[in-house]
């Protein structure tokens, strides 16, 4: 029975973390990477086995294991329980599969780094918490994983902790996520209050059993959960940590952005779909947040110069898509996009890492160009990723993105058409900025200087002509490129003659999708429109950055204010800084430093000192040095004791 092996899936990465985290410093690098790789490879194999088991005929749709009660008080109990259903399985596949590939890549990428053991220990810890998050059968255990990935991301983003910007980025990620977690916690409190349980089965069972429960408290819980999800999945208004998270080593960006942490919010919303389905209001909020984030982040992505930052904003934008899908009730489409996105975004990040590696740490696209000939394998794999994310058929991104657009268009949400349009424009912009990145990096004149000294990772020694990465880095790229090409084929809609396998796979979790034959024509039309949009995006990028380079800067000069606004990311960070950080700092200084610290803390300190001194002055008189007075006090004390012993009982009882 696979259930008994379920524990191994999260525990193995944890073992890896323990080994590397404690004795890793003394182990040779080969052993460190062997431990880290084995501890992620075996869970991946176990997940594959689990997958085969769940797909076999007669397999249960969901099964799990329950351990001893974890928290048990009168009338309330949380068990340490894991459970697996098809949604979990899909997430497990993505997390362990892509995570393992990223581990392999890291062996090459981090080969010359200080703190090699530390890196792999954190990476394994990240995997452990993400797997706990995905496998959890209760909100509380999910929250453990939720907090855990926050911690691991803090450690990994701030990996180069001697660098101020990295340390600050780590802190930012951590703190922004705390704001979201606050919402999650409140949601859990409400759940406990109203359901008396945190188990998914019990809460969702109670909701399903009462079809008349609508809105009200469910909306409140759902909205608080959304707040949590916006933090973890980097949505408006809590997306600001993700671009800064680029300070971590590139494999970390790939892991956080593609396979693990940011998908947690989407997963959580999808997991709680029973709850969300009962609250059209909360769903609408999710959809609007998603669409707004998608287009907003895409706007910023248009003009970024740092190759990793473009990808970061692209991630935010794509996560917006997944939110949009959940918001219109197309959870399976959202999860499908999550999967394909994991493939091509991991690929893009790792390829970008390979580019950075080739240029010895250069990340600014203004100093790239013409790399196509120098690093052909990176070029071709990255091309697959770019085409996939741009939504050009038949690559993976097309099917999942199109599914979302179609579902938005046909959704009963009154804003459905608008959401679709926003999504469509975003798709065009995505295509534009991804091809912009592609042209600027791989085509045109070579602009890189050969003495880049702002190196991402230590090895400045070989900083000359761009060089292709070693195969340990290229192999994951190739695998991910293949997945980016064919990964979407599991979700070819019926309208295209496919079987929509992905949707059927998730059917046991979500109610059956809406595949009615009448809309095939519409689906095809919408697909044609989105392909056309992607093509337009490509064409503009082609004109701007290949055919007539400089067009973009001419345009930028025509409306400098707007350009600057977008280039500076709409000054959101500055606004947050002014309103929240500065405001909070001032309030803190006034309240904590001014009032609490001087009055309460110092005051009580001084009062304690003064009272002690007064008391000692009083009692020091007893210390006269006069033996007879000592003896007198002694006698008095003895008399008092005798008095109490003889008469005390009668005194107390009456």
């Amino acid at each position: 029975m696979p259930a008994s092996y379920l524990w191994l899936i999260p525990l193995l990465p944890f073992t890896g973390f323990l080994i590397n985290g404690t004795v890793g410093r003394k182990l040779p690098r080969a052993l460190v990477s062997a431990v880290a790789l084995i501890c992620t490879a075996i869970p991946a194999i176990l997940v594959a086995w689990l997958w085969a088991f769940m797909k076999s005929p007669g397999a249960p749709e969901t099964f799990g294991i329950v351990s001893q009660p974890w928290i048990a008080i009168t009338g309330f109990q949380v068990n340490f329980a894991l459970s697996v259903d098809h949604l979990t399985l899909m997430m497990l596949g993505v997390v362990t599969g892509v995570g393992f590939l990223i581990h392999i890549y890291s062996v090459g990428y981090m080969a010359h780094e200080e703190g090699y053991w530390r890196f792999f220990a954190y990476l394994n810890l990240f995997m452990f918490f993400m797997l706990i998050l995905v496998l959890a059968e209760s909100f509380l255990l999910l929250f453990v994983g939720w907090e855990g990935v926050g911690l691991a991301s803090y450690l990994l983003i701030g990996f180069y902790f001697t660098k101020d910007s990295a340390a600050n980025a780590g802190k930012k990620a951590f703190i922004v996520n705390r704001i979201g977690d606050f919402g999650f916690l409140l949601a859990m409190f409400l759940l406990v209050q109203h359901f008396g349980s945190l188990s998914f089965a019990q809460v969702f069972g109670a909701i399903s059993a009462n079809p008349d429960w609508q809105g009200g408290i469910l909306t409140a819980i759902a909205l608080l959960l959304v707040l949590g999800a916006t933090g973890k999945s980097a949505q408006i208004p809590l997306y600001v940590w993700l671009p800064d998270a680029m300070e971590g080593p590139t494999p970390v960006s790939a892991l956080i952005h593609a396979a693990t942490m940011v998908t947690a919010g989407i997963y959580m919303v999808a997991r709680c779909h029973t709850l969300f389905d009962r609250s059209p209001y909360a769903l609408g909020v999710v959809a609007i947040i998603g669409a707004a984030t998608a287009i907003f982040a895409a706007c910023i992505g248009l003009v970024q110069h740092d190759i990793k930052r473009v990808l970061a904003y692209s991630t935010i934008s794509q996560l917006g898509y997944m939110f949009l899908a959940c918001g219109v009730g197309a959870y399976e489409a959202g999860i499908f996009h999550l999967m394909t996105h994991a493939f091509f975004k991991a690929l893009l990040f790792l390829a970008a890492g390979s580019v950075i590696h080739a240029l010895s740490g250069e990340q600014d696209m203004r100093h790239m160009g013409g790399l196509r000939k120098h690093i052909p394998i990176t070029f071709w794999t990255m091309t697959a990723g770019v085409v996939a994310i741009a939504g050009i058929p038949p690559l993976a991104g097309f099917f999942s993105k199109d599914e979302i657009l179609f579902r938005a268009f046909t959704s009963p949400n009154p804003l459905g058409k608008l959401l679709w349009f926003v999504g469509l424009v975003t798709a065009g912009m995505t295509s534009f900025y991804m091809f912009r990145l592609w042209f600027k990096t791989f085509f045109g004149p070579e602009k890189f200087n050969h003495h880049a000294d702002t190196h991402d990772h230590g090895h400045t020694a070989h900083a000359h002509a761009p060089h292709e990465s070693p195969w340990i880095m290229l192999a994951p790229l190739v695998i991910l490129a293949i997945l980016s090409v064919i990964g979407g084929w599991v979700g070819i809609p019926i309208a295209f003659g496919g079987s929509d396998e992905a949707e059927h796979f998730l059917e046991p979790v979500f109610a059956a999708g809406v595949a009615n034959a009448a809309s095939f024509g519409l689906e095809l039309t919408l697909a044609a429109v989105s392909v056309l949009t992607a093509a337009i995006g490509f064409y503009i990028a082609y004109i701007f950055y290949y055919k007539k380079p400089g067009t973009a800067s001419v345009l930028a000069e025509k409306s400098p204010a707007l350009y600057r606004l977008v280039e500076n990311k709409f000054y959101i960070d500055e606004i947050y800084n002014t309103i929240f950080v500065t405001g909070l700092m001032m309030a803190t200084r006034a309240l904590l430093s001014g009032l609490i610290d001087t009055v309460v803390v110092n005051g009580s300190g001084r009062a304690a000192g003064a009272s002690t001194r007064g008391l000692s002055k009083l009692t020091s008189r007893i210390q006269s040095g006069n033996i007879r007075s000592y003896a007198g006090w002694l006698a008095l004390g003895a008399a008092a004791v005798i008095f109490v012993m003889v008469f005390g009982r009668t005194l107390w009882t009456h």
Partner: protein
Amino acid sequence: MVPIAYYLILAAVLFSVGVASFLIKRNIITVFMSIELMLNAVNLTFVAFAHMWHQVSGQIFVFFVMVVAAAEAAVGLAIIIAIFRTRQTLNIDQVNLMKL
């Protein structure tokens, strides 16, 4: 047979006399003697109770007390002599070196 209360009252009187003279007297040797008086008052109660309960443990305690008192007398007298030699007085109020 004398009732035990009599012994106890006598012991209490002796003890109180010892305490009072300890507190009032200034001569260090008299103070010393009043301590012995208190010890003897306690010894008396020990013996009285031992007799009452027909047990020897009280008597044995008396021997212990006497042994300790003898040792104390030896050490105490030595200290008194040392104090007298250094300070030329036996007035206890003038021997307040331990004052803070």
